[in-house]
């Protein structure tokens, strides 16, 4: 990939800077805990700089830099994207660090799994900030209304999580083990990632078509699961009060994901759907006979949704289900997990004010995420958002229930230039 950057820099410097355009934004984001009004969850200023370079109609260069001045976590600089586009008659190439978006669902990632996610603030950050760019070569060939997309991602990049003890740290099996086994008997090894070798690269294909006003896609992605499983090796001790010591190794696993999506309109209703089938994904088992407490099972995740937008209103609903077809009772995860989402927005005063409600409810785990936001656009380029995020559930180890104490109220002010 260093070669790609060298090519990009040579490309820009050799063709001049006349066609360079810079845009971006400055954003302030402050969030206060609703549980403890003296606690800030987020205090941040952010600068996003995007450089667009269009030397000809057949080529385009793009770079996106991010400066995050987080007063609670420090300064963070990142190069979010850096790529070259080359356009041919029936072929587009994108080469470099990029975000690749698949899927139809709102607020969920079902087939949209090409880019790893930055989950250090769970899924509450803006979507453009949640997805992390990956170095890739993407080729898209066009045949009328049909498109064939091929991806090659030379190096695996895992999702990012908050560290243990931070506000948005995820619950892991380690938490469960630490509750019953003394720390002195737990050994946690480094994350096991695939070596940086061509054989470990990720690749995928996606075919898109439009048939009788229905958009269809079919996809296959040979990837590494962005989320590690913690292999747990128990060894007996002679101590009756602590009968085991445990070695834990977080491992990223190779998987194949087959996906499909559709979208169409029936009257004034938009219908969407997507599904992903994971072949041999790893899941935790409580079976003490299992050597590492992890077993492989196929996994299906799908969504069906509908939306309408009468006047200045928008209403969308989605039903989501996760299924482990070959289930056994020792699995820690449910055989099926059912979720629903609702998104409602309404604009006022010639779209200078917008109110939004987004709700995800997990019927199986009985946990939820509710987001209420008010947007105000006082003038061009300025966006003010006041909102609140409410998370909770019956249990502390569920997706949303684990962040029960992170309900927050926030203010975001953004100036785009």
């Amino acid at each position, binding site marked *: 990939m260093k070669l790609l950057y060298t090519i990009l820099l040579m490309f820009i410097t050799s063709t001049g800077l006349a066609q360079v355009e810079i845009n971006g934004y400055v954003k302030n984001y402050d969030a206060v805990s609703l549980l403890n009004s003296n606690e800030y969850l987020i205090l941040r200023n952010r600068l996003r700089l995007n450089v667009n370079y269009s030397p000809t109609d057949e080529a385009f260069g793009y770079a996106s830099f991010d400066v995050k001045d987080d007063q609670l976590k420090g300064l963070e600089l990142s190069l979010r994207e850096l790529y070259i586009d080359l356009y041919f008659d029936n072929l587009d190439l994108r080469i470099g660090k990029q975000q690749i978006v698949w899927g139809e669902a709102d607020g969920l990632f079902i087939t949209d799994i090409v880019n790893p996610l930055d989950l250090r603030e769970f899924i509450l950050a803006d979507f453009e900030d949640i997805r992390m760019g990956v170095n890739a070569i993407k080729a898209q060939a066009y045949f009328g209304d049909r498109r064939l997309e091929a991806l090659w991602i030379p190096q695996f990049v895992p999702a990012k999580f908050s560290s243990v003890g931070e506000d948005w740290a995820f619950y892991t099996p380690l938490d469960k083990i630490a509750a019953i086994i003394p720390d002195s008997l737990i050994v946690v090894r480094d994350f096991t990632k695939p070596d940086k070798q061509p054989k470990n690269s990720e690749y995928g294909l996606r075919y898109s078509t439009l048939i009788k006003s229905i958009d269809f896609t079919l996809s296959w992605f040979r990837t590494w699961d962005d989320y590690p499983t913690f292999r747990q090796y128990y060894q007996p001790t002679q101590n009756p009060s602590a009968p085991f010591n445990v070695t834990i190794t977080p491992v990223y696993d190779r998987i194949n994901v087959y996906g499909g999506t559709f979208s169409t309109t029936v009257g004034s209703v938009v219908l969407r759907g997507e599904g992903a089938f994971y072949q041999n994904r790893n899941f935790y088992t409580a079976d003490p006979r299992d050597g590492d407490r992890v077993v492989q099972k196929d996994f299906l995740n799908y969504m069906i949704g509908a939306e309408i937008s009468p006047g200045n209103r928008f209403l969308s609903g989605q039903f989501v289900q996760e299924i482990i077809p070959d289930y056994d009772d020792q699995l820690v995860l449910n055989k099926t997990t059912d979720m629903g989402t609702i998104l409602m927005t309404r604009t006022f005063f*010639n779209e200078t004010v917008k109110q939004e409600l987004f709700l995800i409810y997990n019927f199986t785990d009985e946990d939820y995420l509710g987001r209420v936001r008010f947007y105000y656009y006082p003038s061009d380029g300025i966006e003010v958002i006041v909102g609140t995020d409410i998370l909770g559930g019956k249990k502390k180890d569920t997706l949303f229930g684990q962040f029960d104490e992170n309900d927050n109220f926030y203010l975001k002010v953004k100036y785009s230039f």
Partner: protein
Amino acid sequence: MKRSVIFIMATLCFMADPGSGQNLTAREIMERNNAQATTRDERAGFTMKLINKRGKERKRKVVMYSKTDAQNKEKTLVRFLSPADVKGVGLLSIDDGDREDQWLYLPALKRVRRISSSEKSDSFMGSDFSYEDIEQNELNDYQYTLLGQETVDGVDCYVVRSIPASDEIKKETAYSMTDMWIRKDNYVSVMVKFYNQKGDLIKLMVSTDIRRIDGAEKWRANFITMKNVKTGHRTELLYDTIQINQGVADKFFTQRYLERGR
């Protein structure tokens, strides 16, 4: 109902007419007003100002492409060029007469999203124009009455009232009737009054700076104001580029192009 999502000035087109001295019926006047509205293709760049009653402005630069292809599909691409927070947003519409498919591209999400066709009465991009204001209506959908003749800015005009011709149209439209001032010499509309279902005047559209388009037997208004008389809010369209029948390429009306965001 809709034959095409042609630009607002399409309803204002005219051609110098040798028969302007004739006694025409309202229907004949509207036929002439509509006669050249349909073009093979158009490209227009304009600035849209949204101005509230206190005079505060918001400004959007937009480029629109439209085309009727060989299969008689009406295709339109709308792309925002500014301000920065909406730059690159694009809307692609393809209407084959039976149904209209629309896709929206949002650069921040890097995703093309299918959306439902807008209702005729929905606001066009947050402006005081609704979709029915900018679409070319089927002549047969309305009944026309010649109210009289008046002079507007020193130019003789016919005054034609349009009312929905069927219950179906009545349900779709936000207006009980419109009164249109159409120049006698060239059949361009220079003023339109829109009345709500109660019969109250709700919007007023005025079109000025009408010019002939190079290379086409068409004329277009280069400055159009639509005012909501109830709220005091108004929208101004100032055109900087209008090209007609210059051959807009098919590539503009594809998801591939929509995704490029520029």
